[in-house]
């Protein structure tokens, strides 16, 4: 049995993040940490330490799938773990992220009004106005709704993958994982050239 470290409990933070979004949407901003920390680690240390140690979401899927035995534990189909799907999914995710930033900008510039909805799987708009309790600038709230939509959508996709395949099947297609691995591969190639 391996010794537990403080970072083995980061799944609590990830769960808390998802729960807090039901009470106050502005907590969604904290999710930016899950975007910047992995990128900064890969950029500066050239490792995937975030995925390997600190990813609370991965830990959560591990607990649900392995400890609670919710996963079918079957291998993923080849097309789902292929390079082209991984990078196409990353590109799709980045486009959707860009669209979310554009919506935020439209609200910021007064072109459109704040929409108090959480959009799941890029299609289903759920009214979420109850979680908008602290009045802030409309664009700040718009970003929070958009970002929480991204986080909730990816969690749902991860849960589906966890149920159908291996507990951490999400890690195979995770856009952040793909991005950080690309950074690491790039850094490694540069290092080998020198």
């Amino acid at each position, binding site marked *: 049995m391996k010794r537990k470290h403080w970072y083995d409990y980061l799944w609590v933070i990830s769960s808390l993040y998802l729960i807090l979004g039901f009470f106050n949407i502005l907590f969604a901003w904290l999710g930016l940490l899950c975007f910047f920390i992995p990128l900064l680690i890969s950029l500066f240390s050239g490792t995937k*330490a975030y995925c*390997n140690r600190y990813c609370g979401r991965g830990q959560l899927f*591990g607990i649900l799938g392995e400890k609670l035995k919710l996963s079918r534990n079957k291998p993923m189909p080849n097309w789902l*773990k292929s390079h082209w799907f991984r990078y196409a999914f990353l590109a799709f995710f980045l486009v959707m992220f860009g669209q979310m930033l554009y919506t935020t900008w439209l609200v910021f510039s007064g072109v459109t009004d704040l929409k108090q909805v959480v959009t799941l799987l890029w299609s289903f708009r759920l009214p979420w106005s109850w979680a908008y309790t602290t009045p802030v600038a409309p664009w700040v709230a718009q970003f929070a709704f958009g970002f929480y939509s991204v986080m909730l959508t990816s969690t749902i996709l991860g849960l589906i993958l966890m149920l159908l395949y291996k507990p951490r099947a999400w*890690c195979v297609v*995770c856009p952040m994982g793909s991005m*950080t691995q690309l950074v*690491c591969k790039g850094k*490694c190639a540069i*290092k080998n050239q020198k």
Partner: protein
Amino acid sequence: MKRKAFIQTKQCVACGCCMKVCPRSAITIPNGVSAQVDLQRCVGCGKCAAACPASIIELSEVSNETQTLV
């Protein structure tokens, strides 16, 4: 002949699931590119193969000679 874990490194997403479950700390992910097995340490228990979400770790028989070469 002993069983050892072999990783299809080109398919590896470097998530670290294998590294986490390895009881012998035989797996590392150098430079965040892909997982690597230290065959001297590997005892072929298969925990990594079971945990790998991409199912790209296989256990193969190796002769003692091969083991010392890697």
